[in-house]
């Protein structure tokens, strides 16, 4: 009896330690300065610049990810071809890649002295340390999150629905837009939210490939790092902002039901949510 209680107590203790450890830094950000003070710091030039750079780069990166990633995921998910599993693994590789490796890789590919540097030079384009570089870095680290989820969502689609669409006179394009996209929509949205969350917080690849120039390539994460020695209150305010944004994204993902059902092949979850 006592042993059993002891064990339960040990479990509870472990849970409390884990929770406190995970939450304490987040709470600390908000406790270091009063909320009014934090909010005021967001009005500073460096904060506004960072917000603008981050938003701009992420909106463009997300657009690129959705426009290119969605058809690519559909192809990988629904068209059997040799080496499919290998391709899916390749897509997932950047997920586990250290950000510094992504940064040096981008430099090696697109930098002035990189693989495609001469080509860009000829075209009069220089990518390194520009906003284009921020967009590329964000796209590179964030897109696998979307691709992975999009492939899973399309795979979960009942093939009979796509076949039915074809026999009803719809070509492959109409089938994609009218049947596959709407039915995979919830899963795609969850994937986009995840990749957006990853993109907003991007640090390592960006600082290596794009640098940290205020108003040009300095994103929120980079500004927090830069302000650490200059004005800790600005760093805290930007940190608080990112905590709130991240929490909002997490909530969005949790509320999207398809996120938890992306592995299901049943029609009914889609049907139920579609009719609500």
């Amino acid at each position, binding site marked *: 009896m006592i042993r059993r209680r002891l064990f339960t107590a040990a479990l509870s203790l472990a849970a409390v330690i884990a929770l406190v450890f995970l939450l304490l830094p987040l709470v600390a950000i908000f406790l270091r300065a009063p909320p009014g003070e934090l909010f005021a710091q967001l009005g500073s030039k460096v904060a506004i610049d960072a917000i603008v750079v981050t938003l701009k780069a992420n909106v463009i990166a997300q657009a690129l990810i959705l426009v290119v990633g969605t058809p690519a995921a559909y192809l990988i998910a629904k068209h059997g071809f040799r080496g499919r599993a290998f391709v899916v693994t390749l897509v997932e590789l950047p997920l586990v890649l250290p950000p510094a490796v992504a940064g040096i890789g981008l430099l090696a590919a697109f930098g002035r002295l990189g693989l495609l540097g001469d080509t860009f030079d000829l075209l009069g384009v220089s990518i390194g340390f520009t906003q284009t570089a921020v967009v590329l870095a964000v796209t590179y680290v964030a897109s696998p999150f979307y691709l992975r989820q999009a492939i899973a969502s399309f795979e979960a689609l009942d093939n*009979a*629905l796509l*076949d039915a669409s*074809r*026999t*009803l006179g719809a070509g492959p394009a109409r089938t994609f837009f009218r049947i596959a996209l709407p039915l995979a929509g919830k899963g795609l949205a969850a994937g986009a939210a995840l990749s957006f969350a990853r993109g907003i917080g991007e640090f390592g690849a960006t600082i290596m490939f794009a640098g940290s120039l205020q108003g040009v390539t300095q994103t929120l994460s980079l500004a927090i790092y830069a302000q650490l020695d200059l004005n800790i209150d600005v760093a805290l305010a930007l940190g608080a902002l990112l905590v709130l944004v991240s929490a909002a994204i997490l909530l969005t993902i949790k509320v999207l039901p398809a996120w938890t059902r992306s592995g299901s092949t049943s029609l009914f979850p889609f*049907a139920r949510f*579609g009719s609500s």
Partner: protein
Amino acid sequence: MDTLRLDFSLPLRSFRLELALAVGRETFALVGPSGAGKTSVLRAVAGLLRPERGRIALDGRVLFDAAAKIDRPPEERRVGFVFQEYALFPHMTVEQNVVYAGRTRSAEVLERFRIAHLAKARPAELSGGERQRVGLARALAREPDVLLLDEPLSALDTHTRAGVRAELKDLLDQLDLPVLLVTHDFQDAAVLASRGAVLVDGRLRQIGTPAELIAAPSDAFVASFMGANLLSGSARLGLGGLTEVTLDDGSVLYSVDAAEGLVDIAVYPWEVSIAREPTRDSALNHVRGPITSLVHIENRARVQVGALVGEVTTASVERLNLKEGEFVVASFKAAATRLVARSSDTRG
């Protein structure tokens, strides 16, 4: 006149689907066990599977011709396909599902299939029978040249099945279209189709009307698929021009069919009568033994005596006071039997 002509060869996972078939303006049933390749035939006609060799033509229009490198995509084939679980689009209403087929006369179609009152409903809210009507309405809204039905009744529970089957029968009778129907249930095929074929492991075993398939099954598999009892034995010419079949247990049965060597005697349950005592009637064949099982189905009962199943009315069961374990005599006429060759690749 034949309107749908198939002659193709298509490798599937464990065997090759190979068949030649001509279907006129009739309902033609492909029956067979699951995994026999029935659905693959429909998918090949619809353009969802590409045969390796051969030709598929509809009303003289070539849909597929391997030699001429013609392979029309599904959307250009003018086929109506009703999928096994109906494959209704869950994010669309009934009306949107029907309109998706691209014709504007959706109101008329909804009315004809008695689903006008469900126009704004989603598929998830419909009963099995209603879903089937929507699936049919959607497939026919495009005015296809052929209707393909994949196990149209298997998604329904036994309760609604008979009603929906009768409804489907009425509809198919009114259609002036070739209909290719796939089912693993011979009873469904017998009700719905004017002709049928038995497909086993990718090959057609026999083609005929349901009555022909029942009356003269070409082999043991077809016979058992039609619901016949199969008793294995060895046949030789006996007295009076009858064939004498010695069963594996030593008992002897008689058939009017001529055969020699290893055979199966096929006899349908409804040809078997059950009595308490051996009777002096015209039946030559008698099997005596205890009733091993007695199952009631609606107004009939299936009575098993040894390897033989007889079907008798519930009234007879009561009159004779039949119970499991009691000794009875199961009898059938030599004229009610068919002798079918036992083939090594036959499965039960």
